[in-house]
């Protein structure tokens, strides 16, 4: 009875066979699903990045502005469209309540995507691919990213960042290779 005190000697009660089997299965499973995580860093293509730098909001904004100036090819809805070359460092800036610039990438090319915020905590969701990362003020978070599908994507903010949060939707274009 789980509601009454137990008499001394309870520690020596043997564990019955089915329960032993189940604990064994569960233990092996738990260790296996722990090991998959480091193994995937070696063999897998989808991992969260470990590369980040501390940076002030102002400095991050300056880096983004310089990046936009260098590769700007147009403007949509007042937001700059930039077409950086494959392999380059690309910047995405979160601010209440807009993502900029609109990145124009090439399918199959690899980029170093810098994520940063100049005010609140934001987060990106690349829709409909469903890639989600947190964007934290004070940090420049660098993801090495290779778009493997082409099309027009949305960048949805999915961390609450104030009352206008749901309007914080950006665009990302991947041209076919």
């Amino acid at each position, binding site marked *: *009875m*789980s*509601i*009454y*005190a*137990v*008499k*001394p000697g*309870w*520690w020596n*009660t043997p564990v*019955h066979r089915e*329960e032993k089997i*189940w*604990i064994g299965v*569960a*233990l092996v*499973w*738990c*260790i296996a*699903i*722990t090991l998959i*995580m*480091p193994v*995937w*860093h070696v063999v897998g293509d989808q*991992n*969260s990045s*470990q590369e980040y730098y501390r940076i002030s909001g102002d400095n991050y904004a300056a880096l983004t502005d310089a990046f936009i100036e260098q590769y700007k090819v147009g403007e949509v*809805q007042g*937001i700059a469209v930039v077409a950086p070359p494959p392999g380059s460092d690309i910047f995405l800036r979160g601010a209440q309540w*807009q993502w900029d610039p609109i990145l124009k990438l090439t399918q199959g090319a690899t980029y170093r995507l810098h994520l940063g915020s100049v005010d609140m905590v934001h*987060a990106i*969701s690349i829709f*409909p*691919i*469903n*890639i*989600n*990362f*947190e964007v*934290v003020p*004070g*940090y420049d*978070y660098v993801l090495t990213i290779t778009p493997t599908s082409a099309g027009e994507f*949305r960048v*949805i*903010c*999915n*961390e*609450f*960042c*104030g*009352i*206008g*949060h*749901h*309007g914080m*939707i*950006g665009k990302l274009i991947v041209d076919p290779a």
Partner: protein
Amino acid sequence: MTTAAALFRTCPATGLKVHLPAQGLIKINAVTAIVFLLVGGIVALTLALTRWQAVHLLNDEWFYRMLTLHGIAMLVAWIVFFEMAVLYFASAILLNTRLAVPWLAWTQYVLMFVGAAMVAVEILLGRADVMFTSYVPLQADHWYYLGIILFAVGAILGCVVFFATVNAARVEKTYEGSIPLVTFGAAIAALIAIVTLAHGAAAFIPTWLWALGLVPMMDAEIYRLLFWGFGHSTQQINVCAMVSIWYLLGTLTVGATPLNEKVSRSAFVLYGLFIMIASEHHLLVDPGLSAAHKSWNTGYFMHLAVLASMIHAYSVPAATEVALRKQGYTKGLFEWLKKAPWGNPAWSSLFISLVGFGFIGGITGVVYGTEQINIIVHNTLAIPGHFHATVVVGTTVAFMGVTYYVLPLIFQREVAFPTVARLQPYVFGLSMYVVCIGMIIAGRFGVPRRSWDMNGVDGPFQVSFDPIVDMALAVTGIAAVVAVVGGAMFCAVAVGTLLVGKKIEG
């Protein structure tokens, strides 16, 4: 000793000695918990009817405000007040002893009540539109943070009273051998609670001082780390308390005895040792931590805390199975399950909680907490889908189930409206299954959580989702309405019992 003896009564049904001051404290904490459940439930209705895009009830400002209030009323107030009642029950009542330092327990209640009320008022006045997480640099009014701090201090005092009571029982030898399993589980929950609340202090005291303008803002990532040491670990207290309640319900409903005390207690120890570090799974797609750190910590130190849950997942139903087989239901594999007391709301609550927590909440928790898989679910609606399955289907249903025994035992009244009570776990629990699964499916298609509008009406670009999403959210909305009805049925039975329930002499 006549005065001391007058402070006790003996429960005619269980033979347990009930300390009257403990009984009073259990009552007031449980009633306050249910009041917050009612508030949170009404708020939940407005939220569900807003996320269901076809209805879209609230405007954006009130949606975020109500979402903040829902988190505080449910995750914090309902659950922690009820846990205080559980701690006092598992110590004073189950150990046949007096509640140590009742005045400190009353201080716990007053601090928690004042804190929760302050927080609720601040939110309703629109001075804390920051969500349950209040990530800096978002800033609420300083009274909001003070309210949370007072609440947390109160909860720590409740844990202190619990341990003082267990110690008093030990010194005064009110029990023989080792403390009951349920009390042991509650003790682990209380230990986790103390560590958790310390993280809460580390996150909220500097933030409060910042809101007062006295110190600079904490680093946003460090706040997230400390906050989740509090925010998620609070849910680990719930897991531990819930599993204790499962064992309690197994005993109360069918007379189950734990299969093996050594196994069940060791599993609780695994919770105590390893569950805290898992809080860092909230930072899996954040800057600031190394991959090794993320794998190790979110692996709960080789998932040993998950192992604990998996052990309980077998040992709880198996204990009830053995008890029912001993009552003669021995045919085949499942006669015991068919003949189980499904009309007893405590039993149906136990099973609905156990199955829903395991199959929906537990599995998704481990899967989504895997370092890499988190990339495809972080901050999507699948996350609320996961934690409603743990905290609502798991913890809340278990707490509701045990209430059907607390009412006669502690409030000394027969449960009113027995038909409503019999149906309540099914209406509430099963509709919550649907709510959770609906949110998980929508999240799979990239629907963000905490969003008033997911189609981009206020943004520069529109977003159109797979038609499955519209269906999933409509089903979620309808099921949520049913769940609110189920929650209201619970409140009606609880309040009805207090007002018109037949008194039990004892």
